[in-house]
């Protein structure tokens, strides 16, 4: 199998996997970066959202061979101490119920806030639209994104 060098959370990691392996399963099975979740495998739920060069991307749809030198950030690399404004806001607003989708929600929100640091509620709703929460904690997710936007200077 080919060996791929991936730039993940600022570190180059080598993996030896089939070329069509989705990044999701490389992260989970090979690198044990388990914050990126498997929810649907077809890009419909957002639980596997990571950043590729700063853009929110579905890891389940991205094959390992398509990444090249792209810079990947997973939830484990979002902040050094779990203190990204979104992570703090998520706790403050007490967002999670079961919690499974939340890392994907946070990664989508983080890429969004970077581009639009002071969004309106409507913009937040649009940005978060593709991330499903089966427990339906949507109102708190929206609130937490807005709280985080106020924390960001």
């Amino acid at each position: 199998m080919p060996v791929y060098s991936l730039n993940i959370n600022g570190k180059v990691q080598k993996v030896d996997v089939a070329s069509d392996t989705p990044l999701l399963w490389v992260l989970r099975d090979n690198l044990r970066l388990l914050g990126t979740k498997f929810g649907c495998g077809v890009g419909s739920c957002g639980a596997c959202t990571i950043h590729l060069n700063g853009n929110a991307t579905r890891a389940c749809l991205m094959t390992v061979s398509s990444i090249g030198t792209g810079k990947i950030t997973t939830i484990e690399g979002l902040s050094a101490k779990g203190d990204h404004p979104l992570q703090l806001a998520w706790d403050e607003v007490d967002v999670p119920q079961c919690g499974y989708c939340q890392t994907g929600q946070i990664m989508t929100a983080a890429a969004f806030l970077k581009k639009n640091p002071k969004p309106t509620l409507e913009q937040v709703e649009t940005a978060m639209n593709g991330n499903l929460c089966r427990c339906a904690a949507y109102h708190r997710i929206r609130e937490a994104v807005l709280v985080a936007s106020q924390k960001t200077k």
Partner: protein
Amino acid sequence: MEHTLHQERRDFLRKVSLSAGGMLLGFTLFEDLSAQTGKGHVIDGVHHDFNSYLSIAADGSITIASPNPELGQNIKTSFAMIVAEELDADWSRVTVVQAPLDTSKFDRQLTGGSGAVPHSWKRLRTAGATARQMLIAAAATTWNVPASACTAENGYVIHKASGKKSGYGDLVAIAAKLDVPTDVPLKNHKDFKLIGKPIRNVENKNIVVGKPMFGLDFYRDGMVYAVVQRPPAFGSKINTVNDKAARAVQGVVDVVRFGNNVAVIANSTWSAMKGRKALEITYSADKALESSSDHADIFSKLMDSANARMHRKDGDVNAAFKSASKVIKREYECPFVPHNPIEPMNFFADVHADKVELIGPTQTPGSARRAVSDLLKIPEKNITVDITRLGGGFGRRLKFDYVVEAAEISSIIKKPVKVIWTREDDMGGGSYRPAVRYRFEAALDANNNLTGYKLRGVGMNAGAPTRENNFPSGSIDNLLIESLDHNSPITTGAWRAPITNFLAYAEQAFLDEVAEAMGKDPVQMRLDLLQKARTNPAGPVRYDIDRMESGHQCLFFSCILCRPDL
């Protein structure tokens, strides 16, 4: 399910002195502490037979073991709050760990039926209060003052008269030497500081950094991954299996058949998924398979059947409809609904000749273990179940088919294995909320009075899809409620508030239609019906009229949708 508290033995609390200088109170939730065969806890190298505990370390940190599966209903937070309340602990020093399945004796180490807190409430409080009393006694002895002159607050024992103050961590070594008191008083509810307050989920900080805690996050070196091809329709059976292409997929190590399932075993999840796609399987069926259009026909036939089960009959419905000046008739239908917890089904199993290790997300660890014991003929005492956090349950994980599947595969391949369902497996493989159709009819007389009401519910594996004593039963003189059920091969199960979930919507939607036809305000119309049920009921009234009247603003909205466990 009944929310009964079992009779408690006075000596249910067991004390353990920790080698590191701390104190631990072990206790058993849900059942008397008696000879137990389960796993219990190993503390300082010694096995203990309690299934839950409260420990206070010399540094003042407090650990509570919570036995019930956590799937987002926040039971870990609730249990810790209850203990910490009576302990007067510093909430920021409390951590909660998941206890494993302990013994076949517990009937409530499960999540479902809204029973965890009612069952455990008194024991958790007693554990906290007992520890608090021992810490106060330890301080009183040290300071040579009466215990009654000391109070506890936020992790400290305080003697106000002398101004002395000691943290719990500094007192545990002494407290651990004291006898465990009995008949410890509990707080008055009005003195609660934590209970009743909005307290954040104790796992928030772990969740937001992606710390592994769910079933799918469990990995063990040397384990293999299994993805299973189940029959494409309920009732189909395997004719032939050609696994040549599947075995040729890089990373696939084995293909095994069990029943009408074929498992592809690989050294990664992706290889197993790819291998499954390469399987060539032909199926047949002994009898005609059911389709959605068959279901529609079956429902229509049941709606007109003369053989309905009668659940309630008040007055003379036929006469009311015969003399009606207006009849309103509506049908409401809900198909089979998958639960779709966002974490797909999965379980880890490691089966040996005489013992089994099971790890994963389940709402019913005890039932899962019994089923695995039955299948493998291995006694339950040799089977351990560790419960991970569940990425949602909604009733799907009350069923344990995927646990048994993992155990069966491991027993065949003789390796530790993690079985992973895909989203498509979950959507297509059941189990679903039973499909139902309701027909409501209302008769209005010339003065727009509601004189007659009929409800017929028909379902697929729904049991009785109606509830005869729901509102508006009792408030309408002539009323008939009946049902019919079709036995379908499609697997079904509880899905948050079985039956009442969709029925409540249909009932209230219909009453809105009736109010519209009567030209009445929909809330006022309901309040009028409640008044009739109170002053001049037709037959028994089994709902709480006062509660419904006082809460009429939100009366007609179901609150059950907020809860992820059913």
